[in-house]
């Protein structure tokens, strides 16, 4: 047995141990952070997940509501949602501006990361909404658009 044999063996042991450790860790911790692109993955799949929001009606001055989100993973691999962000972007009525004095959109309140099993679905927190007393009269019967952005990674 030569000295290079010894080196190879040690290196193999280190790599093997590292690989094993990576494999045995919590999958959510080992998932790769994916870029926010719609490009198909290397395996040719085009993963899709659906965010469903429960209807929110009857906002009026002083009212507090929650936009409850449900995530559905239609792909054949688990997904781990690592971030969820929401912001107010538009309203349906002139004179009712999409500003915090008309509607406050709070920070997402669910636990993250949230794992969504392959072909599975789960409720995943909510976005709190508050219509302050400063809301103007023009906002009566207005429809507010809330933009939600999700960060997700593929899981093993």
């Amino acid at each position, binding site marked *: 047995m030569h000295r290079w044999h010894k080196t190879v063996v040690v290196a193999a042991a280190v790599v093997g141990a590292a690989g094993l450790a990576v494999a045995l860790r919590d999958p959510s911790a080992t998932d790769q952070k994916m870029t926010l692109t719609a490009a198909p993955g290397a395996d040719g799949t085009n993963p899709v*997940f659906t965010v469903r929001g429960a209807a*929110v009606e009857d906002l009026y001055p002083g009212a507090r509501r929650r936009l409850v989100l449900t995530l559905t993973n239609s792909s054949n691999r688990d997904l781990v949602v690592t971030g969820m962000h929401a912001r107010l972007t538009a309203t349906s009525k002139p004179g009712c501006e999409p500003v915090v004095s008309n509607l406050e959109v709070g920070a997402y309140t669910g636990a993250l990361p949230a794992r969504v099993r392959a072909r599975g679905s789960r409720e995943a927190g909510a976005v709190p909404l508050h219509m302050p007393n400063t809301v103007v009269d023009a906002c009566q*019967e207005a429809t507010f658009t809330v933009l939600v952005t999700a960060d997700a990674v593929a899981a093993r």
Partner: protein
Amino acid sequence: MRRRHARTGQSFRFLRSPLPFVGVATALAIGTGVAAYGDWDVGADEAQFTVHAASIPRMDAPAVTLPGGQPEITADGIVVGGPRIEWDRVSIAPGTPVQRYVVTRHLGPIIQVACDVPADHRRCVDENAPAGYLATYTVAATYGSFWTGVPSPESAPVPLPGEAAPIVVDGVVMVPGGDGSTLVPAPGVSASAPTGIVVVPQAGTGDGKPAAEPVVSASASTAPGQVQQPPVHKPPAPPEESAPVPDSGKPSSSAPAGDDENEGGTQKDTPLGSAVDAVIPG
């Protein structure tokens, strides 16, 4: 030297076993697998959701009744204990009544607030109705600092008892028309010289707040026939949902009746919508 050779021999002895090579193969397999997952992108575009604000429902036309018995007219030409206006209470959302009701008196083109009362009321008395005129009334619900409902349709015309005199409303001098139903500007009459002219004040709120000052203008600069908008009333800000409602109270079968006998008004609910979906393609 012999000891070193002996240690070297022991060190390489395990290489005779296949285990190290199995370990290397396993590590390579795991590494390859992780790399494959790392190349798998997940799309996460923005998703739009819509949420909906309520609105104050438009109320039905109020019912107006004149006080019974012999009408009493003040020296200022105001009907004492004037018309009683009644309405059905409404809600802004299921279980959430509006906060105030504003009743407006219409004397032809002249519009004035007759009553401004909390939500536990369902009637009020116009304490400033001018005698001898034909009046109609509308009612609108309000909520919060800025939300006001669309005024109801006008009530049936009510002929106010007594003899009509020229009046000044919002700086405009008016007299009844030939049949008492039409108000026309009095030619050559100035509001700045109101001798013999009745000044019709705005109503105060009906919940103990002082009445507003009369709205007669010192000058007659307002064009005859010009419609004056009622003053903007700013009731207290509504409470947050977790706090009790101090001003309105929620009408229910067990709620106090306020100042009248007409308890248990109709409530109108805002319809519920359906869920909304957003698909985030990958």
